[in-house]
């Protein structure tokens, strides 16, 4: 087994994480900025990375910037937004070929880091704000991005579930912000927010590939420097619905009904029973040998997919399945029975061991990709923990049947959301 060694170095205003590995033909650089999820900032944060990656002071047009990337052997540059618990995270990704696999010795890593620095710290500014035309275009695209959720019924029903379930919690906010808040953003107030984010966010830079740590450090010390800060911490509260399970049905012209059920686990990354929760989820609905897949799909033939997924920093679990409208009661009944079975310890030693083996396999496979490795390591930044991949696996393997049953008994169904077709059968 090869687990990656992460070297963490405190730089001026940010942490540098270097993971040296010879697995890849490319080097990956990821810049992350983390702040509490708030209604006030979420839409600006959803827009900001897209404006920054459009162009810079030295590459004032997108076509020019993209041509420069093409010249660097097709270096890729993209940004994304994520919600991890009640934090909002902006990410900037740059990936380029490792020049040792090319006949041309251009120092691509150095150029990649310089470009990232240019994008972060030398934006295309006009007066007191960003270039107005760029902001206008990216506002338009952001609105389209927010609207596009509606057209992907799987994403839509999942988003609706969260919206209903976490109604008065920050977690209900959409990762791309609110369409109605986009118009109020101006080149000036976005630039102001940009300065605030770089002054207050928790900043992390990951460099993954066959790189030399000292070299990376020396390139960076001349490039990126920010003020010291104490990042804001959030404690996710314990939520428990007082009333009965909330049930929401929505009708649209769809052929397949989308069933999404939300549960409170109230267990987050870093909690002692987090690893038992992972194993619980594996037996319950994480894999093709899990209870949901076997009972909803294989035995009852109701669905093509039926699975459960954890949100590690919010303490919730989501079940999703696509079913015929008329099978709603039967599917919900089967799903409820599976959780009851878990609570009673109604799972075999084989299911238990098999699940651990598959999770072990999944984690080891995940760290075979730069992106997967990054996601696993970044949990530590969000949760303020120091769990390396090896420890993660050991703790997961150590969990007992009793711990799984205990976890099952903590889990409470919260909200059922069903997107149903027009000729609903119930």
């Amino acid at each position, binding site marked *: 087994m090869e687990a990656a060694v992460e070297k963490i170095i405190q730089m001026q205003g940010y942490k540098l994480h270097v993971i040296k590995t010879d697995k890849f033909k490319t080097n990956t650089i990821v810049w992350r900025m983390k702040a509490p999820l708030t209604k006030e900032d979420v839409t600006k944060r959803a827009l900001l990375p897209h404006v920054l990656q459009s162009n810079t002071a030295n590459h004032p047009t997108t076509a020019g910037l993209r041509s420069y990337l093409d010249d660097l052997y097709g270096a890729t540059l993209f940004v994304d937004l994520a919600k991890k618990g009640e934090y909002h995270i902006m990410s900037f990704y740059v990936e380029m070929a490792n020049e040792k696999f090319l006949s041309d010795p251009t120092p691509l890593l150095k150029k990649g880091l310089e470009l990232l620095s240019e994008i972060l710290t030398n934006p295309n500014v006009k007066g007191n704000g960003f270039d107005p035309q760029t902001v206008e275009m990216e506002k338009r695209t952001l609105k389209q991005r927010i609207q596009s959720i509606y*057209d992907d019924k799987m994403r839509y029903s999942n988003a609706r579930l969260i919206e209903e379930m976490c109604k008065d919690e920050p977690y209900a906010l959409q990762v791309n912000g609110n369409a109605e808040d986009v118009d109020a953003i101006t080149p000036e107030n976005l630039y102001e927010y940009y300065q605030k984010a770089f002054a207050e966010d928790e900043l992390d830079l990951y460099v993954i590939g066959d790189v030399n740590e000292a070299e990376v450090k020396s390139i960076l010390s001349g490039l990126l420097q920010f003020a010291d800060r104490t990042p804001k911490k959030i404690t996710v509260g314990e939520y428990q619905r007082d009333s009965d399970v909330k049930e929401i049905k929505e009708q649209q012209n769809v052929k397949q009904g989308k069933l999404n059920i939300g549960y409170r686990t109230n267990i987050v990354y870093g909690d002692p029973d987090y690893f038992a929760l992972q194993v619980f989820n594996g037996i319950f609905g994480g894999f093709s040998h899990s209870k949901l897949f076997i009972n909803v799909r*294989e035995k009852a*033939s109701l669905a093509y997919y039926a699975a459960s997924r954890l949100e590690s920093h919010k303490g919730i679990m989501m079940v999703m399945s696509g079913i015929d409208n008329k099978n709603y009661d039967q599917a919900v009944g089967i799903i409820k029975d599976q959780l009851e079975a878990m609570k009673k310890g109604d799972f075999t030693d084989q299911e238990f061991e098999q699940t651990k*083996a598959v999770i072990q396999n999944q984690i080891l496979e995940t760290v075979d990709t730069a992106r997967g490795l990054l996601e696993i390591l970044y949990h530590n930044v969000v949760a303020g923990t120091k769990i390396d991949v090896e420890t993660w696996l050991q703790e997961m393997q150590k969990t007992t049947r009793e711990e799984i049953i205990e976890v099952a008994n903590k889990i409470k169904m919260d909200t059922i959301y069903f997107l149903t077709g027009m000729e609903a059968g119930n």
Partner: protein
Amino acid sequence: MDKITFDQLQEELYHEKLPNGLDVYILPKKSFNKTYATFTTKYGSVDNTFIPFGKQDYVTVPDGIAHFLEHKLFEKEDGDVFQQFSQQGASANAFTSFTRTAYLFSSTAEVEKNLETLIDFVQSPYFSEKTVEKEKGIIGQEITMYDDNPDWRLYFGLIGSLYHHHPVKIDIAGTIESISHITKDLLYECYHTFYHPSNMLLFVVGPVDPDQIMNQVKENQAKKNYKDMPEIKRKFEEEPDSVAEKKTVLPMNVQTSKCMLGIKGIHIQQYGEEMLKNELSMNILLELLFGKSSENYNQLYNEGLVDDTFSFDYTQEQGFGFAMVGGDTSDPDQLAERLETILLDAKNSLAFTEEQLERTKKKKIGAFLRAINSPEYIANQFTRYTFNEMNLFDVVPCLEKITLNDIQKLAQEVIAEERIAICQVIPQNK
């Protein structure tokens, strides 16, 4: 066993053709945890008219049967092979494309056992009327799921506009109606025609010892009594050069319109190096015309006609090929018109410089290196290339040889009004 070394990429590939015709390839990746193996037959959704093994006459089988077979192969008399893989710590999967059906697993432990399971389950079909009926419910839900997916509908809507007869226009999973005609006997007939080792390829990539893997596979195959197989006879109707429908509009439950333009490919009877060159040239042409650094893309983006869902792609296999360009748009008709104009202008006067071509090649070389980080990409694409008598590892040298003249010539040949079709998804209440 042959060994092929790729110095610049620092990779080694091992190959042997076994006596029963099975091609086995092994690519060691020392520092990876994961071993990934694919066992693929050259049989996909387009192979719907053929002479079944042991028969004289052509038959046409129900749409979606290759995909149905893929699902059913996992089920055995004593249960489900998925279970066995996960007991061995592996995750297994399969997929059916237009021209291939692939079975695969990935695992970080018990590789030998998992490899044995993979080969054995694919080579021991067990179909019963009862389980075939049950699967119709599950695949029915898979089909309805795709019916609600606008991007999927757009994709097949466009292929349907481009092609008159070729079975590439048929949805890979078929329809609820077509799969209702599938029986266990039909599944066996397809299986015995297309799953002979001489029509298959096994690819293993990961931290493995090539000698050990090759010996294991040889021993496994030596135990099975495969008779020599006559050449498989497939039949395709004559397909006109021109498109079937100039424009198809699909009203759906969406808020954002989508528009995709398709070009019917040429030189689709090619194999080997010629095909590789044609495919790469097509990709370069599209990149020059519509890539993120292109003038066209930036103009369309600035005008608000496209957003970051805009994409383009070229697909080519034996007997069919198509390029697709488009994405979400505020004005599907305007975008269709603009895309077509850009293409027709390029046909007449392709105005690119050597510098732009070199830059595009560099981009493609970087993309190739990025792609081969992935064991999945290597195994799946290598198989596809080999079935078309091309070599995945020839991509970079072949790219380097392409000239502006090649691109100009291709643009003149492939771009033509009658080879272009449009498909749009629009909000249904409009």
